[in-house]
């Protein structure tokens, strides 16, 4: 996502509906995508995106440009997504399994070819194995290319927590990968 001009943010903050719509058009792909990677469900990602924009609409008027809009947006999306999952888990008592899950179709563009679809599915399968906090860290590192300092600032956690979450996430992925390889080998032998 490219950085948004200050003028547009100020206009939207003053209640200019058109400016707010433009802001939505330019950031929604990113907001929805990030929410989807963290929550893993289309329906949850939509709810998170809605909450994010309602919150942004309320807070834009007092946005002081002390940090970049993009960084602020990252933080709002991730906090909203993580809180959404925690709230949902509290209500359900356990994570609700639904048929959609991580197998949901990402976007019409994303499934144009079998190859893309396969990589999308692989990504979903991998993220599915992690807890939301680890998922958020890994997505910011691997897909957004953020360094540890940026991840720490965005999520409001210290550097060692970033390190330990990434470590645990990768160890879980390695364990899962090795298990799959072993299963494949067993299947070929039978």
């Amino acid at each position, binding site marked *: 996502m490219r950085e948004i001009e200050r003028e547009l943010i100020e206009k939207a903050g003053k209640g200019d509906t058109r400016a*707010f719509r433009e802001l939505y058009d330019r950031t*929604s792909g990113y907001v929805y995508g990030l929410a989807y990677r963290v929550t893993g469900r289309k329906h949850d990602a939509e709810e998170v995106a809605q909450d994010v924009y309602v919150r942004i609409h309320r807070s834009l008027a007092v946005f002081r440009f002390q940090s970049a809009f993009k960084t602020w947006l990252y933080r709002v999306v991730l906090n909203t997504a993580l809180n959404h999952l925690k709230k949902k888990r509290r209500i359900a008592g356990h994570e609700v399994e639904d048929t959609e899950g991580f197998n949901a179709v990402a976007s019409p563009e994303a499934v144009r070819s079998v190859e893309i679809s396969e990589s999308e599915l692989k990504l979903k399968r991998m993220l599915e194995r992690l807890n939301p906090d680890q998922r958020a860290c*890994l997505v910011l590192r691997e897909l957004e290319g953020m360094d540890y300092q940026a991840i720490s600032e965005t999520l409001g956690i210290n550097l060692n927590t970033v390190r330990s979450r990434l470590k645990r996430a990768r160890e879980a992925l*390695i364990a899962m990968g090795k298990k799959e390889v072993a299963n494949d080998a067993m299947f070929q032998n039978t």
Partner: protein
Amino acid sequence: MRCFKIRERLVTDYRDGELGKREIAQIEEHLRGCEACCELFEEVTRFATLPRPERGIEMEPDSRVWENIDRKISRKRGEARGIQGLLDFITMFFKPHPALKTAVAFSLVVMIGVMIYFPIRTSTPIDLEVSEYLSEQIEMMSILGSGDFERLNSDDDFPIFEADFFDWA
């Protein structure tokens, strides 16, 4: 550096390019002589690297997302307008026109003046009866105190004090 420390860095800092040149050199030297650590780093690259989607992280949300946002914002704006209207209405009474303020102040001064010079007395028939009874009682008590008992018998104002009521003899 020991394997334990190296392995920790292999899945985090080394993998993510967070180390300085000196530490990178130390790890690479260790990797040249340690098969287990080499294997771990290979696993990190093989199993723990997320495939990058074609469009990066961006995904197009459904059109209903904007519709819901728009509806929520409009509702909030309506609520805010309603509250503002109520506040304006209340404020109107606390911030009247300066001429009205002067008029109210003048009226108050006049009213207070009138009340001081012409106190209002409102007496009901019961009040009058009670006050008459009390003054009779006070007069009677003063007569009793002075010892002028004849006045009690001769005065029709005190019918209750008949001569036989008191034991004069």
